[in-house]
């Protein structure tokens, strides 16, 4: 949530807005005022003018502020994140003729140093970004999950062992071992199919790769295969595994 707010604020910056009228951001500004006194100044190579620079750095602090302060924020940010974006859209449409004075697009991100997100907002025009917003959100979600758990690269032909927590079987994790026969890339919904022999019967399961139910994935072995979907294995009798 806060990354979204940071993103929307950054979008505003690119258009050279440095005065936020509007009741939505009063809470933000009050917060900024209190934070300014105690803010650390991170080094930044912005070539923009000083007033905007201050705002930039203090906005940088919104993301890196202390945990307790950030907990205060969700109350208002939850409410004002969406209006923020719509307000941005409104502002964009009215002031789209304003020239782009921020020289380099990715360098403002250096002020929000520590955390994450490489400059994902590639376009300076807001409406162009909006076309890719789903892609951007998807990539963000994937990176978030990847940061939490370590998810190895699963390619078809690998023999993989999973530890899955099955919600129906509330008893803990079952280990599932099988060969990956297919992988379908779809952002957060990337799924892969696992084929295994259970008690003499072949079972195929499809798992979302970033599912929180998958506790651990371990690649045991790799087979060299020459295609991406190994459905021909269904006809072949697999060795008991």
């Amino acid at each position: 949530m806060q990354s979204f707010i940071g993103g929307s604020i950054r979008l505003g910056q690119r258009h050279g807005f440095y005065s936020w009228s509007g009741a939505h951001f009063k809470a933000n500004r009050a917060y900024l005022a209190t934070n300014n006194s105690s803010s650390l100044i991170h080094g930044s190579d912005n070539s923009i003018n000083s007033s905007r620079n201050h705002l930039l750095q203090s906005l940088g602090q919104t993301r890196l502020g202390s945990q307790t302060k950030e907990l205060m924020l969700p109350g208002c940010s939850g409410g004002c994140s969406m209006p923020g974006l719509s307000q941005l859209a409104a502002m964009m449409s009215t002031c789209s003729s304003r020239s782009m004075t921020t020289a380099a697009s990715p360098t403002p991100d250096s002020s929000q140093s520590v955390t994450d997100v490489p400059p994902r907002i590639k376009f300076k025009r807001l409406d162009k970004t909006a076309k890719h917003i789903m892609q951007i959100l998807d990539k963000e979600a994937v990176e978030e999950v990847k940061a939490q758990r370590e998810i190895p690269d699963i390619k078809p032909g690998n023999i993989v062992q999973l530890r899955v927590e099955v919600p129906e079987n509330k008893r803990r994790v079952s280990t599932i071992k099988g060969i990956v026969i297919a992988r379908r890339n779809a952002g957060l919904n990337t799924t892969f199919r696992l084929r295994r022999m259970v008690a003499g019967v072949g079972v195929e399961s499809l798992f979302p790769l970033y599912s929180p139910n998958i506790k651990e994935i371990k690649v045991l072995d790799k087979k060299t295969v020459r295609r991406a979907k190994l459905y021909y294995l269904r006809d072949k009798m697999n060795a008991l595994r």
Partner: protein
Amino acid sequence: MAASFASKCSRVGRSLLGGLGNNLSGLQSASNEVVGNNVWSQMRTVLKVVDNSGAKKVMCIQALKGKKGARLGDTIVASVKEAMPNGKVKKGKVVYGVVVRAAMQRGRCDGSEVKFDDNAVVLVDKQGQPIGTRVFGPVPHELRNKKHVKILTLAKHIA
């Protein structure tokens, strides 16, 4: 789900073949022919019996609950087509059964899907208690929700 839809699109021809293939090749033993994608267990589908009630193969007469057919975990009415000589059920008897393995994938609440290589059924009586005393092969978790707990306890492996 998106995954099954995508795979369905790419194999639409095969699934038609699989539907026909499953029904036509019913009387032969379960050969791994073309695995159709979405094949319901409907009328005239022959299923394997995986308990020790005496029957070997049953043909589905009716899928209770569902216009299109039965899926994993559903109950069907079936007629015994092939039976062992000394068993609790004889050939030609009409019995109820619970589908425990289906070649059609069944989605789970966490987004995963499961699909078996064959269609198998466990014979039950009208109340839902299994007739046999043992169940062979794996059974899925879905039976727990359908309240077929007895079958789950008899099974050696829960897929």
